[in-house]
């Protein structure tokens, strides 16, 4: 790991939705250490600044991919990057999903909106080794069909069950409409021997984790990815503090047994 940005070149840019793109990056020189699914990098847009972005792909062939939504000056600058542009990247940072702890168990992945991006490498890794896990269920909630990332890829995933629900269907949408938690009834996992991975907006994480815990998934087996204002990513600045945790180091992925109490406090 290095705390100094390393130059990476954009080798491919794939628009995901109207405001979200996936950038494939290759190092110009020595690569950073390998990223684990769930870990994040600080990605630097020269002249604008840097933001934390989880990896959305960690190809065995090397390089990285980040899926970025344009919500501010830096992210818009990154989304505007073209093949050939150079960005600064430092990392890897934080605690990842730790998929290996789910070996021999059913796996339930619940993603909301762009929260699917950090979960994508975990899903691909689990699907690449189906004998190592029980059922693999993937449940996805999105605002609308047009805002669903990795849409064509999702259809090809050989899961036991992949469910997608949207809040605002368009005329062509023939799938589910409603909260992502309604899909849990269709995923026939065995709660006591399930590990769940949840990423999305915090109210959705809370609703999903509570539902999973109600069903009997052990709280420490519900892994959630929390988002806070990571600035330094090295545990020095304190911007990402959540109670006793500095999420850039102790997170972003934490167990629900630890996160539940912290997300229930009105002010921390």
């Amino acid at each position, binding site marked *: 790991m290095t705390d100094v940005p390393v130059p990476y070149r954009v080798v491919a840019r794939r628009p995901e939705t109207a405001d979200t793109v996936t950038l494939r990056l290759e190092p110009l020189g020595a690569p950073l250490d390998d990223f684990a699914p769930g870990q994040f990098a600080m990605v630097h847009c020269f002249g604008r600044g840097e933001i934390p972005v989880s990896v959305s792909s960690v190809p065995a062939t090397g390089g990285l991919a980040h899926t970025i939504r344009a919500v501010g000056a830096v992210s818009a600058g990154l989304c505007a990057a073209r093949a050939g542009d150079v960005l600064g990247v430092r990392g890897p940072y934080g605690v990842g999903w730790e998929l290996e702890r789910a070996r021999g168990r059913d796996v339930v992945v619940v993603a909301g909106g762009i929260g699917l991006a950090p979960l994508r490498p975990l899903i691909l890794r689990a699907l690449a080794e189906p004998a190592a896990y029980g059922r693999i269920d993937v449940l996805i909630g999105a605002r609308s069909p047009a805002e669903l990332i990795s849409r064509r890829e999702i259809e090809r995933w050989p899961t036991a069950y992949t469910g997608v629900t949207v809040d605002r269907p368009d005329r062509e949408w023939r799938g*589910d409409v409603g909260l992502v938690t309604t899909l849990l009834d269709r995923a026939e996992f065995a709660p006591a021997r399930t590990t769940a991975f949840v990423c*999305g907006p915090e109210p959705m994480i809370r609703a999903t984790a509570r539902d999973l815990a109600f*069903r009997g998934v052990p709280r420490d087996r519900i892994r959630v990815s929390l988002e806070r204002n990571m600035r330094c990513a090295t545990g020095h600045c304190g911007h990402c503090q959540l109670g006793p945790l500095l999420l850039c180091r102790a997170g972003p992925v934490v167990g629900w047994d630890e996160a539940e109490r912290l997300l229930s406090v009105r002010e921390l």
Partner: protein
Amino acid sequence: MPPSIALRVHHALPAEHRDRLLRVAREVSFPPGTRLFDEGGHADRFWIVRDGTAALDLHVPGRRAPVVETLGVGDLVGWSWLYEPFVWRLGAEAVTPVGAYEFDAVAVRLMCLDDAEFGRAVEHWVGRVLAHRLQAARTRLLDLYGPHNSGGAR
């Protein structure tokens, strides 16, 4: 038990009331595209989905009725039959082939009047379904997946 499961008729009603209710059910099936009911119509029936998916929609003049929610296996379709003026507040359509238990609303309301315990149990069940759907609708009002909810504006 999570709310969605607790609301299923098999969990939500005590066994004796559930059995009584299911005794007056008819098994029906609807091909995709079948309208179960339309907004403003007389709510004279209701259903519990056995398999498939039904969509609830809302009439908007000048455009196709947008779907506001889909219901699946075990879900109650229709609650307006229990409350005056017994008029559907939404429309419903089979998205996929739907198999369902169909109930005659008048018969069930008479059973509720006839047996106060049964009536309380049915009203409690439907009330909880309504509360659950209200909570889900309010959560969706937050527009959770919108850009303003994608972390800090950086």
